[in-house]
C-alpha cells in the first residue's frame, strides 16, 4: 500500500479498548508521516490548553512512509504529545528497530488516549493486540523492563518503554526503545507514565511494500552510494562518533562551559572528545535499522570508580556532563550517560540541570543541606550521584527531575536556566554561532539542535560554509534547514543521512516509495507545512515568545575567536518572521495558511 500498511491502533487506556482504524491517507500525503502526521493527528484531536500530565493529553507513536523500507537509515519513528517540560508540541524521534517492527506487525501508528488506573503494557503480535497488566514492571528500569518483557513475550519482540523517573513525572524523561535508543527530549516519558503505560512490546511478521519497487531501488542505491562516498556519512561518523565534535566546537570557541558562565572554551575538552573515547573506551560501532553510517558507540569503562558499560555518550550528552559541568573525567561522563539510558532520561537536560545547580550552589543560592554534599563545578562524582538520584527519584533528585528552569526559579534565579521555552540548550554557543542563537529561539519544541542544525554550514561546512559570526542571511538559511529537517523527520529516515544526502536524494526515495510525481520543491513544502502546524499549536497553547536566556543576549563571551560577542537575536528575528511569511509577532499570516492549506 504505497509504503504504508494502512492501519492505526487507537488504544483507550481507561476503557481498555483497542480499535483498528484506517490510516488517514490524505493527511499522510499532506504531512508525510512520523513527526508531521503524528502532529497532525494530535492537533486535530487535542485541546492545545490541555494539562500535559492529565488524561486529556494523548500520546502518539507514528512511523513514516520510509520506516521499515530499505531506504537509507529508514528505521525511525516519532513520539508525539504535548510536552510537560515546555508546554509546546512535543515530538521526539528514535531509531533502533522498534519502528520497523511496528509496521511489520501491520500498524503505521498508535494513538493512546486517557489513562489507565493501574500499570499496563500494550502487547502486539501481528493481529493480536491487547493491554496487559504491568504491575510487576512498575518500578523497574528501562533495562530491567526490556529484559523482563523479552522473557515474557519472546526474545524477538521489540520493546519501547519508560523508566522510574517517567513513572514519577520527571519532566525530561524519555521513551526508550531497544534499551539505548531514545525519543529523548521534552519529557514525553512523563506523559506515558501519567497514563500508567509502562511499555509497548511488538513483534511483526509482515512486510512493507513500496509503490514503484524498481525506481525505489534505483533511488536508494543512488542515495547509498552518495552517502558512502561522503567523508562524514561514509566513514567519518563511524570512525569517531558524534563526540568527535567536541574539539572542533571547542577550538571554534563555541563549547559552552560551566553553565555557559565561563564562556565557550573548555581547556580540558580534548580529554572528553571522540578521539579519547575511541582510544580508551570504545568496544565497537553499532548501527540502527537499515543504516550504513553506524554512528553509535558500544563503550566500556573497564575499571576504576566509574567502571561501567553501555552505549554512548553522544556529543550533546558528553558536553552536558563534560564542559557544561566543568568535568574532564571521561569515565564519569560515560557512566552518567549510561545511567540516563538505564533510567530513561534525557542526558542533555540532565547534565545541563546539574550544571545549573552547580552555579546556584557556588553562588550560595542552594544550601548544601538541600543537596547533601558540596556541589562544585568539575566534580566527576557529583554528576554520577545526581543522575542516580534522579534515576531512583529520591532526595535532591526529585527537584532536579523538574529541569533547570524550575530548579533555578525555586532558588530565585530563573535567569540562570540556560533554556528556551524551559528546555535546555544543547552544546553550541549562540554567541559564537549566530545562526544557532536564532535556531534555539525559534525551535517549536524549545531549545534544540536538530530543528535545523545550522552548526553544519556555520562550523562544519556541510553542505556549504558560511561565517558563524555573520547574522545576514541566517534567517533564510535557517528556514530552509528547519523545513528540510521537518520533512526528513516525517519520512522516517535518520537526520544524519544529510551528512551526505540532500533534498534530491531524500525526495527521490520518498517519491518512489509512496508513488507520487511531486517535485522536490513540492515535497519540501510539506516540511514547511509541518513547521507551521507546530507553530499554530504553540500559539494556541499560549507558549512564550521566541527569545533566549539573558546571558546570551547580554553577557559577552570573555575570550576565544568570538570574544566580545553576544547573540544578536533581534537583528535576525524580524527577518526570520518575514521569510517565514509570518507577522511581526511571529504568527503565520492568513496568506501563508492558505498557501500551505492549513485551517487556522
Amino acid at each position, binding site marked *: 500500500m504505497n509504503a504504508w500498511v494502512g492501519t492505526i491502533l487507537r488504544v483507550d487506556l481507561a476503557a481498555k479498548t483497542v480499535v483498528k482504524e484506517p490510516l488517514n491517507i490524505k493527511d499522510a500525503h499532506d504531512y508525510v508521516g512520523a513527526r508531521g502526521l503524528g502532529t497532525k493527528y494530535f492537533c486535530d484531536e487535542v485541546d492545545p490548553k490541555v494539562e500535559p500530565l492529565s488524561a486529556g493529553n494523548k500520546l502518539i507513536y507514528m512511523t513514516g512512509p520510509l520506516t521499515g523500507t530499505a531506504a537509507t537509515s529508514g528505521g525511525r519513528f516519532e513520539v508525539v504529545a504535548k510536552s510537560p517540560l515546555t508546554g509546546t508540541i512535543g515530538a521526539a524521534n528514535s531509531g533502533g528497530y522498534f519502528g520497523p517492527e511496528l509496521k511489520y506487525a501491520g500498524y503505521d501508528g498508535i494513538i493512546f488516549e486517557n489513562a489507565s488506573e493501574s500499570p499496563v503494557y500494550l502487547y502486539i503480535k501481528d493481529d493480536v493486540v491487547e493491554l496487559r497488566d504491568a504491575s510487576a514492571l512498575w518500578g523497574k528500569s528501562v533495562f530491567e523492563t526490556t529484559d523482563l518483557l523479552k522473557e515474557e513475550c519472546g526474545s524477538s519482540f521489540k520493546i519501547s518503554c519508560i523508566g522510574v523517573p517517567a513513572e514519577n513525572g520527571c519532566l525530561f524523561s524519555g521513551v526508550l526503545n531497544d534499551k539505548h535508543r531514545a525519543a529523548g527530549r521534552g519529557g514525553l516519558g512523563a506523559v506515558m507514565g501519567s497514563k500508567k503505560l509502562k511499555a509497548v512490546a511488538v513483534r511483526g511478521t509482515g512486510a512493507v511494500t513500496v509503490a514503484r519497487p524498481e525506481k525505489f531501488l534505483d533511488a536508494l542505491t543512488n542515495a547509498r552510494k552518495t552517502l558512502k562516498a561522503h567523508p562524514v556519512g561514509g566513514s567519518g561518523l563511524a570512525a569517531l562518533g*558524534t563526540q568527535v565534535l567536541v574539539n572542533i566546537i571547542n577550538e571554534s570557541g563555541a563549547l559552552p562551559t560551566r553553565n555557559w558562565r565561563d564562556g565557550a572554551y573548555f581547556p580540558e575538552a580534548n580529554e572528553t572528545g571522540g578521539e579519547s573515547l575511541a582510544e580508551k573506551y570504545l568496544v565497537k560501532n553499532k548501527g540502527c535499522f537499515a543504516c550504513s553510517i553506524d554512528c553509535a558507540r558500544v563503550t566500556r569503562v573497564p575499571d576504576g570508580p566509574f567502571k561501567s558499560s553501555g552505549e554512548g555518550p553522544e556529543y550533546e550528552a558528553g558536553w552536558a556532563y563534560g564542559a557544561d559541568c566543568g568535568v574532564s573525567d571521561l569515565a564519569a561522563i560515560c557512566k552518567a550517560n549510561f545511567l540516563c539510558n538505564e533510567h530513561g532520561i534525557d542526558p542533555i537536560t540532565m547534565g545541563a540541570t546539574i550544571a545549573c545547580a552547580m552555579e546556584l550552589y557556588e553562588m550560595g543560592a542552594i544550601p548544601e543541606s538541600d543537596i547533601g554534599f558540596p556541589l562544585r563545578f568539575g566534580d566527576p562524582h557529583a554528576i554520577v550521584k545526581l543522575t542516580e538520584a534522579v534515576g531512583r527519584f529520591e532526595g535532591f533528585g526529585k527537584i532536579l527531575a523538574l529541569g533547570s528552569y524550575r530548579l533555578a526559579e525555586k532558588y530565585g534565579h530563573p535567569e540562570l536556566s540556560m533554556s528556551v521555552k524551559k528546555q535546555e540548550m544543547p552544546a553550541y554557543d549562540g554567541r559564537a554561532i549566530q545562526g544557532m542563537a536564532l535556531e534555539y529561539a525559534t525551535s517549536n519544541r524549545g531549545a534544540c539542535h536538530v530543528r535545523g542544525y545550522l552548526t553544519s554550514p556555520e562550523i562544519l561546512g556541510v553542505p556549504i560554509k558560511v561565517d558563524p559570526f555573520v547574522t545576514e542571511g541566517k534567517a533564510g538559511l535557517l528556514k530552509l534547514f528547519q523545513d528540510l529537517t521537518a520533512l526528513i523527520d516525517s519520512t522516517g529516515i535518520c537526520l544524519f543521512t544529510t551528512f551526505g544526502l540532500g533534498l534530491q536524494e531524500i525526495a527521490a526515495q520518498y517519491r518512489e516509495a509512496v508513488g507520487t510525481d511531486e517535485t522536490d520543491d513540492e515535497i519540501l513544502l510539506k516540511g514547511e507545512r509541518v513547521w507551521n502546524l507546530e507553530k499554530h499549536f504553540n500559539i494556541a497553547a499560549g507558549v512564550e515568545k521566541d527569545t533566549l536566556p539573558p546571558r546570551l543576549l547580554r553577557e559577552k563571551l570573555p575570550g576565544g575567536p568570538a570574544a566580545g560577542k553576544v547573540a544578536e537575536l533581534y537583528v535576525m528575528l524580524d527577518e526570520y518572521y518575514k521569510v517565514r511569511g509570518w507577522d511581526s509577532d511571529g504568527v503565520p499570516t492568513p496568506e501563508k495558511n492558505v498557501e500551505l492549506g492549513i485551517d487556522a
Partner: protein
Amino acid sequence: MKLKFFATYREITRCNEEDIPVPHDVWELLTSLGERYGAAIRVKLFTPDGGKISDDAIILVNGRNILHLKGKDTPLDEADAVSIFPMVAGG
C-alpha cells in the same frame, strides 16, 4: 607557533599538538606538512592536482576558519594557533 591535529590527522602524524617555527602563511605550513608526513597527509589536505586546499580539510587559525580569513594566504605569526581537522560532524 602552536599546531594542533585532530581526529584522523592524529593517526597520520601520531601527534596531538606541537610547537613549530612560524611559517609565512597557511599554504607554506600545509606544504611543509605534506613534505614531512608524505602522501598520507597530502591526499587529505590538498585537491588531487595539489593546487588547492581540499574542501574536506578544516583549517582554523585562532579558532577562525581560514575561509573567513584570507584562505591559503592567511598570514601566521608566533602567537597563532593552527588547528587541523578532517570534515567531521555529529550532533
